[in-house]
């Protein structure tokens, strides 16, 4: 059953790498935006909220195309990043990670925002009376109390990134070894006569990975909750 071709293994490894990198890189931005949306009151807040949620409602192909005309080699921003920082997204695995990160971002922000909104802010007042300035209050009170939501958000983003297809293939194409993730590999195999058997193996693998990710997040979030409520 699991005599996968090297190319398929490459796709599995690449998927895991892309999903992990996109989740980790998106996390600080996710926390910042979630805090802003949960607590900030500023002009354009609902606009920001809408923009963050865009990838959730737009057809992935549209998101992918928007990425292409923003971060492509010939696009102004893409060219600038390539020339000045050596960061190239188009047709690279980094581009796949960018696409996955953006597609997963709304899910991450939602989960973190909910947990930030659930925090009893009076605990932060208590920290202030005990001598904690706002940074220390954030590190020692806000962040730990938001941890269940942060874990849930990371796992959702990871799972979403593993499943990402449309935006990725539009933005960085389907290059084996560089941008061909599990989804893209399955798609390719299905197009080829006699490829169904290999496709099915990859399907099973992606099922296993996603299931494990969700179970792990459930377990971690439960542990974090138990910590908060005194076990």
């Amino acid at each position, binding site marked *: 059953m699991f005599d996968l071709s090297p190319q398929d293994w490459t796709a599995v490894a690449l998927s895991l790498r892309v999903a992990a990198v996109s989740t980790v890189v998106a996390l600080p931005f996710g926390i910042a935006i979630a805090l802003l949306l949960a607590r900030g009151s500023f002009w354009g807040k609902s606009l920001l909220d809408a923009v963050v949620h865009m990838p959730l409602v737009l057809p992935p192909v549209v998101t992918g195309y928007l990425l292409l005309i923003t971060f492509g080699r010939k696009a102004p921003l893409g060219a600038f990043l390539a020339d000045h920082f050596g960061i190239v997204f188009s047709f690279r695995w980094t581009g796949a990670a960018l696409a996955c990160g953006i597609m997963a971002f709304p899910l991450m922000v939602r989960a973190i925002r909910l947990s930030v909104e659930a925090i009893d802010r009076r*605990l932060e007042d208590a920290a*202030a*009376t005990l*001598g*904690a300035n706002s940074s220390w209050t954030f590190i*020692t009170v806000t962040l730990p109390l938001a941890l269940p939501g942060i874990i849930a958000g990371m796992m959702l983003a990871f799972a979403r990134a593993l499943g990402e297809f449309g935006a990725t293939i539009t933005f960085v194409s389907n290059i084996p070894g560089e941008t061909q993730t599990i989804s893209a590999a399955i798609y390719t195999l299905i197009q080829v006569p006699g490829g169904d058997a290999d496709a099915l193996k990859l399907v099973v693998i992606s099922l296993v990975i996603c299931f494990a990710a969700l179970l792990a997040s459930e377990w971690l979030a439960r542990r974090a909750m138990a*910590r908060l409520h005194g076990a």
Partner: protein
Amino acid sequence: MAGTTRNGAPPRGLIMLVVQVEKKLGDAFFLKASFTSASRATALFGASGAGKTSVINMVAGLLKPDRGRIELDGEVLFDEAERIDLPAFRRRIGYVFQEGRLFPHLSVRRNLEYGRWMTGQKEDGKALSHVVEMLDIGHLLDRRPGKLSGGERQRVAVGRALLMRPRLLLLDEPLASLDVARKRDILPYLERLRDDGQVPMIYVSHNPAEVKRIASRVVSLDAGNVVATGGPELLDAAHIDMLA
């Protein structure tokens, strides 16, 4: 030595708090309170909604007055005219909240040490064991706040506020969330704390019996105004003893 004063300062162990604040709270509620306090235990007394908690929140730096001045031991904490507003974390004023507000993700020991840690003070085993012993919370140190009873939680909250070595301790109805039996359990600890004499307290309560047991001076608030100040005998006239 107790009782002697130097330069008009209050006796040793006591510091002068000067509060003179105004704030509009809601459409029809205007808080305007002025009082000074230099006793070991001053009670802010009044019915619920009289503005007591708002006043001590202003002293703690959690609520900003519209106008006025707050001074502690000669240091200006707030002055609207001079645009001084020392942030809460720099005031070194301990606060025991009505609901404890212990950090649920930290053990009791870490809750107790939080203030020392945040104010950058050296570890002081003697201070810790003194407070732990006074409040009888030694057996709780490794537990989490979620597993404590209401009375235990309040004792830990008192200990947490004390261990940051505050210049002044504010207690906001620390017994209000407890049943009568628990209140009786905790009152002696608060008396011990007062007699320990290390830090002056402002004790907020609507309960005359509590105030009489704890406080040597009473500031009586009604509808946002200070209506009387004096000794505990102030309470004898009008109010019914709710605790006895």
